[in-house]
């Protein structure tokens, strides 16, 4: 478990630095690339937790699709090389209390539901079949709700893109 802890620490440090650079760097594309680093770090953490299906999904969805579309969009509209001056929103400082609030909620949720429990040291790799049994068994209703949200987003995108 020691090796995993060290790896966790290193990856977590890289993710924190990357996340800070996302909001401080002076170039839209650079910010997006730092965000890729943060998301890749999250995938690596999932691998350390032996959740390889989730890790692969993280890479496929966030790096392969979301970030590529993000970069595609910015490059198609405006993505100048070099520093940009007016990249900061005038209400940027509101982000600090919001992120602190989110951090508090997450700490509260984790400590109240897990307390002093520790991860098993010899956790087995979670098979894909086990995950699908869970999704299409006890978690079917949340899964449907999520699908519905995605469907609404897709319809919204079509409505926005239509000319008439």
């Amino acid at each position: 478990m020691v090796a995993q802890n060290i790896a966790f620490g290193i990856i977590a440090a890289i993710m924190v630095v990357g996340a800070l650079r996302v909001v401080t760097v002076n170039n839209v594309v650079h910010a997006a690339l730092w965000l890729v680093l943060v998301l890749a770090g999250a995938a690596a953490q999932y691998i350390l937790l032996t959740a390889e299906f989730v890790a692969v999904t993280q890479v496929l969805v966030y790096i392969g699709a979301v970030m590529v579309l993000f970069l595609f969009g910015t490059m198609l509209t405006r993505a100048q090389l070099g520093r940009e001056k007016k990249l900061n929103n005038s209400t940027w400082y509101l982000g600090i209390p919001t992120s602190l609030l989110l951090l508090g909620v997450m700490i509260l949720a984790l400590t109240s539901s897990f307390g002093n429990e520790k991860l098993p040291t010899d956790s087995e790799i979670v098979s894909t079949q086990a995950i699908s049994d869970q999704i299409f068994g006890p978690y079917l209703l949340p899964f449907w709700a999520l699908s519905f949200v995605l469907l609404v987003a897709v319809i919204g995108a079509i409505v926005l893109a239509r000319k008439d």
Partner: protein
Amino acid sequence: MYALLSSIPYWGQTLLRLLGGAVAVLLPAGTIVYLFLFKMMSFMQSRLGPMEAGPYGSMQLFAEVGKWLQKEDLLPERADSFVFKIAPLIVLSSTFLLVAVVPFGPDAWFTNFEAGVFYALAVSSVSVLGILMAGWSSANKYSLLGGLRAAGQLIAYELPMILAVVGVVIQAGSMNLQNIVVAQNAGSIFGWNGLGNPYLLTQFVGFVVFMIAVQAELTQTPFDMPIAESELVSGYMTEYSGFRFLMFFIGEFATAGVFAFIASVLFLGGWGVPFSWFGWSGINDVDSWMNVGGPLIMLTKMLGLVFIIMWVRFSYPRFREDQLQRFAWKVLIPVSLVNIMATSVLKVAF
């Protein structure tokens, strides 16, 4: 079965796997460039191709690499130097990550990943990132246009590719590439097991969709809008020279080889021979000589599939951008969805 492997210490296994990975990426790339790009293309155009360096020009490849290594590593004045320099590395590393899940024999694998196919599809999409970075950081309108075209095309053709693979996964009942190989070679066609059950027969629609999507993912000719030389000079690669251009070049043909490896695992039975020939009943009975024979079988199948890719490349003219997108969204995706439905109905019925 694991006696051979477990006698080697862990660091030795890791070293062997790293070396094997380098060979599995670079050897197919070199073979493809010489056999198909130099020789087959020349023969199809009624000329001889390179003949001076070595017998039948077989040393031409080393001469080319030497030439590229000598060239200056140019950087446009207004380019974003860090992103510009790291972009080809990301494209190439995506190829090396891709080969990590391909099994070459009962023991000759790099990693026996549970969600193997899914992993392969995920890491292959990372190369788009490198292409976008290259296009943007070059400070060149042609490069940016090429990068954007590449991203649009690769996103569009990733979907039919994933959907085509789903049929195979349903039939094999596993996403592990090793299990898919075993399922094909241990299988039987209506009780006759002389050929195993290669999914080329049952998943022919999936195979065709997969190979078309591979052609588009590799940006080979009917789908080479991103590097269309008559419009965009060389697309996202325009500003690259020397070793960094070589990396893009190796990445292109190595990825062709690795995708052909994956296609042969998914549809042609991979490293295996039909198990009934030697009376094997499962993976644990397979003789260890297959660890040498397997890679050779894979190499043969890979060359056959790349031959098809190159044949199409040298035969057809380029798609227009709108035709290319329409073909992906209106033909390939519906066809592969129907294929998934038919496969799952038949899977439940039998």
